[in-house]
């Protein structure tokens, strides 16, 4: 399955794992991965992109949807393990001003 999610043992961190192409086809699965999780105060979200091979602008749109759903400016979302190509795409769109990029 290209998108899955896991919760840390202390319940404070939710990680969404994306593998393969991160594009329009992953939309529903990606949304389901964080919609199911109740965003209580202080919960951090991590989108693990270590196994994502590619990302297009519709994926950027999906990240914006996620951010909006989790509270907009108050959402705590980290995009982790970005490949060079994905980092480049995120930088061009200046998403570092909306997300933490690790």
């Amino acid at each position, binding site marked *: 399955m290209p998108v899955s999610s896991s919760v840390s043992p202390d319940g404070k961190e939710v990680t969404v794992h994306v593998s393969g192409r991160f594009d329009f086809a992953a939309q529903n699965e990606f949304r389901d991965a964080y919609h199911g999780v109740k965003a209580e105060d202080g919960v951090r979200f991590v989108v693990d992109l270590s196994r994502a091979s590619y990302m297009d*602008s519709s994926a950027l749109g999906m990240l*914006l*949807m996620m951010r909006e759903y989790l509270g907009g400016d108050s959402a705590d979302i980290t995009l982790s393990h970005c490949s060079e190509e994905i980092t480049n795409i995120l*930088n061009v769109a200046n998403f570092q001003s909306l997300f933490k990029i690790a």
Partner: protein
Amino acid sequence: MSTPTLTVLVADDDTTNRLLLEAILEQEGYGVIHAEDGREAVEAFAQYHPDLVLMDVRMPEMDGYEATRQIKALSGDTFVPVIFLTANSDLESMVRSIDSGGDDFLPKPYNRIQLQTRINALMRIRELYNTVHSQRDELRQHQKRLERERQLAKRLFNNIVHTDVLDRPNIRYRLSPMSLFSGDILLAAAKPSGGLHLLLGDFTGHGLAAATGALPVSSIFYGMTAKGYAIAEIVAEINARLLTILPVDMFLAACVVDLDASSQTLSVWNGGMPPFLIYDAERRQVRQRVASTHLPLGIVADEKFESRVEMATLRSGDRLFFCSDGVLETPGPQGERFGNARFDALFAEELPAEDLFDELLHRLQTFQADTRQLDDVTLVEVVYDQQLLELGDATLAAEGGRGGRADIPPTSWALDFVLEADMLRHVDPLPPLIQTLVDLQGFRGRRQQLYTIFSELYSNALEHGLLGLDSSLKDQPNGFARYYQQRDQRLSALAEGEIRIHLRHRPEAGGGCLQIRVEDTGSGFDTERVLPSLSDNLGKAGRGIQLLRSLCEQVHFTDNGNGVEVHYRWG
């Protein structure tokens, strides 16, 4: 369930056989017509349009194979099954029957059950065939209508977003043909003060949604450019509008450029697009690269939106390149992408500037390594040519004319504006001021002339009067950029001072006369000393005065250069 209305054509020269078949078929409720040879069969088919044909192979005049070929040709788009009546099931005759268009065989001697089963099976196929067929026809109709609507919408869309400015000889572009309405949008408009604004944008996704988003973008872009707004204000306005109309996951990456003819500078706002390049034609190298430093448009609210632009100085012959990310993402045969490295390498090869555009397209095509069209590629090249930039523009006059009513009769009125330092620091007052004048009096579409006059008077009062800038700086190498840099620094530090604008209008035969007096509280200059040199000076610094004298009847400097009064006659 048998359908009694079905008609079956029986073609057999053997009367006994035929009568036997006819008897079985009539008992089953079919209508029967018969033929005694192949030729008769074809004629009967053409006349009665039966639903099914039972065909003997050997017949006088025309055999069953040929008759079947002709019947299949006659039936065209409808499916009329032909069942061959065969005495023996030898392989060769079976092959020939199928080759001639036959659909099944019925071995002799005939058996009622076998016949009925075959007819039922073929009728089911026919029904399926007819359903598929009518659905196909329906789809074709839909598609045709949709295509007509799309073509119409496309013409409308192009009329709205495309202006003649894009057809100027110094602009070349290649727009993505990926979809009828691509997600890429290219806008160009002449500024009232000379120069151009360009916008290359890329919506998330493409198609109708992207095209719909492009409409407000183009109307804001053209409207505000014609009114003299700067690109920082235009991108902020587009951002605010898109934020309200676009769904959260949709945005517009855009690179917006202001090419200013009078200051020979360029300002760029890049949010989410690949780097914008300035290529020095003489040295054959990239002189400046403006990478994206902002979020795309339509994502964040006003208070977080950054409209800061980057500036660069231009030299005649410079080539400016913008592209959409489709260029960098052009896929190769193994799925790898063209990428930044190949793109940058091309611009580092010291190629003649005029070859770059074609060479890049060529390399993209070669990289893609097959005959497919380049899909999602938008590429724009602008040659910086000062004379072309100063061209007037028909669409600009039209845009300007639209702003006010043309039929307002000349009337008498006066207006005074006092612009204090804290306002000057934050706002360019000219666009709203000129909008007010056009709304009040119309001026018959002379927005551009008014803009030029006010822009000269205002920048004179601000830059020389309040900020104390020295025009001769502009004559030095890189002087323009340094001049405007100093202007920005001093303006943002401006703590006190005022610019006062006094306007008096009175009607005259067929038009009116607008008296404009602009005063500043700066230290001024000695009119006696400076004026002769200004009016003789055709260079950069004095050109403003020349322009004023060409548009206005009187140009008076008063109060040691702290005040200027001009009379503008129109009609």
